[in-house]
């Protein structure tokens, strides 16, 4: 599989493959040595899992964005990967079609999920809303908060958002706190997943 992906990436003129690894530990070593822009990690690697490797790479090389490849479409894995610091989550089934786009997205600081993951998250969310009969918390958000939610989910920092929207950093922080309280989301990965569910981002 690695060979296939390498061929795929090298076919893109703007990409260069700077290192390869056959297990998690090696992957961390390579990333520490080369500080790549993007690391593509299989979630199920020998010696050190992709999740653990992602955590260590983020710690050792903060400039590196991480795309995780997985055969699991379950939200538990997606959330865990995001918590470990991954920005992209691709299903192995559809990796050839989406990898290039995913790498470009995470390089720009955006998050990226396989379309199937997005679809599944949205479906689960809709089903839950329907079966519980609960109020859609998204309705509680003000237009400004929705805007900020989208920008946050796209990977923008508070400071960048303040610049984009012409607001003070303090105002952005207040909005962010309010919207997290309203949605009952306590971490950035949860916020990202929520945004995907609500199709605020894809």
């Amino acid at each position: 599989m690695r060979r296939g992906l390498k061929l795929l990436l090298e076919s893109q003129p703007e990409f260069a493959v700077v290192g390869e690894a056959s297990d998690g530990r090696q992957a961390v070593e390579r990333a520490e040595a080369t500080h790549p822009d993007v690391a593509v990690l299989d979630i199920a690697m020998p010696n050190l899992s992709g999740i653990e490797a992602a955590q260590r790479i983020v710690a050792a090389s903060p400039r590196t964005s991480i795309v995780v490849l997985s055969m699991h479409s379950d939200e538990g894995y997606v959330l865990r990967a995001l918590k470990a610091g991954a920005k992209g989550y691709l299903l192995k089934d559809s990796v050839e079609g989406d990898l290039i786009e995913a790498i470009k997205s995470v390089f720009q600081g955006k998050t990226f999920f396989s379309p199937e993951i997005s679809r599944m998250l949205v479906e689960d969310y809709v089903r839950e809303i329907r079966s519980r009969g609960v109020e859609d918390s998204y309705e509680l958000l003000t237009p400004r908060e929705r805007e900020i939610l989208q920008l946050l989910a796209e990977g923008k920092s508070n400071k960048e958002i303040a610049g984009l929207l012409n607001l003070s950093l303090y105002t952005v922080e207040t909005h962010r706190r309010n919207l997290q309280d309203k949605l009952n989301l306590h971490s950035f990965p949860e916020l990202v997943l929520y945004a995907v569910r609500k199709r605020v981002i894809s």
Partner: protein
Amino acid sequence: MARPSNLSDRTDPVWRNSDRLLLDSRLALAVGFGSLLLIMALAGADALRVLRDFRTNDDRIRRQFLFQNRVLNEIKSEVYLSGTYVRDYLLEPEAERAETYRASLEQLRKQMDAALQSYRRQLAPEGAQHYTALQGELAQYWQILGPIFEWDSAERRRLGYAFLRDEVFPRRQNMLAIADRIADINEQQLSAGNSQVVGLLLKFQSRLVISLVAALALGLGMAALSIRRILKLEIQVHSRYQEAAEARSELKDLSARLVQAQESERRALSRELHDEVGQSLSAVLIELRNLSSGMAKKSDEHFREHVETIKGLVEGTIRVVRSMALLLRPSMLDDLGLVPALKWQAREVSKRTSMDVSVAAELVSDNLPDPYKTCIFRVVQEALHNCSDHANASSVHIRVQQEPKRLTLSIQDDGRGFDSRQVKGLGLLGIQERVERLDGKCTIRSAPGSGTILSIELPFSEPLHDNDGHSNQEPRETNSHPVS
């Protein structure tokens, strides 16, 4: 409200009861046989004491009789002797010789006084009167004898014979008669003493009879009691044996059902492998053959069509294999920990059925030891299976909590419920087995029409090892709001 039924409570009251019963019968036997032995020992001691009394009494009576007899005889012979001395004294012409007779008489008097004195000490009240009479006679006797020692030989010769005949002999007869009477009394005393001893023996006999009867009665009572106890125990043993036999046959039945369940699971897996995976792979093979045989002739369009079909088949197969693998052992349990696996399971069940399943987890560590997370996961799986297949529930709430010394799980549904005292399906037994293997407790509260709450409690304290310097509090996930 449903009645709680604790399925795993092993401190069966019957066992405690039987322990108490055993203790009771031991106590009863000890007391019974103890008092029996005590009665026998007391009776024996009594018999010994009575025998000893008997012997000493007999001895005493005999000795007293002999002594009194001897003294009396002595007195009697001395009375005779004194008569002789008096006669000799009166008839003796020589003054010097007469004087020796007089001294002998004095001597004799002293001896008689001493004998009387010692006799007085052994005196029985009945003989007192005769004794005083005898003493009086003796005193008079000596008094009468008094003047003759003043006589000279002429007077003695002249008055002596008459004195002997008129004074001394009648007195002597008198005294001897009294002595005989005293001897009679002595005889009487002897026989009275004998009859006293006989009375003692009779009393002892009746006492012996009473204690023998008591011992016999107590022995009979003890025997009856022991027999009753033994019979009771026998009945208990029998019923216990019956229970054990029933339990064994239940177990046999259960293992047969388990084997059957395993077999049907294998059958389902095999069918799925054969029908789904096998069929798809066969179809892929066929498509590939078509492709290779027609490669030269067919157009690009045809080529693409075949490839698309193969792709679809392979994707489908991958899905089937993956879902089968997840069914066997969900990878989340190992990769992500208990709570994400439970949430996945809840989502899957919600998708598949019309039930709404929610999971609330509090402070549950991500790296629980495998037996614990497997146990909880399988219990939840089984319970969800029951909820959807039997209980017809529309919502299920799962709650897991880790406390310092235990893990608790509760699964509450709003389904039909059942009588938890009567119904025990294989699933519930399986749950119980898993929980008991970890020394846990499993409680089911349910009643027809009021839903079911399954609670389990596993004793567990997190090991305090610290491999890489991290606090083991850190990997815990705090998530108290329901997520499905």
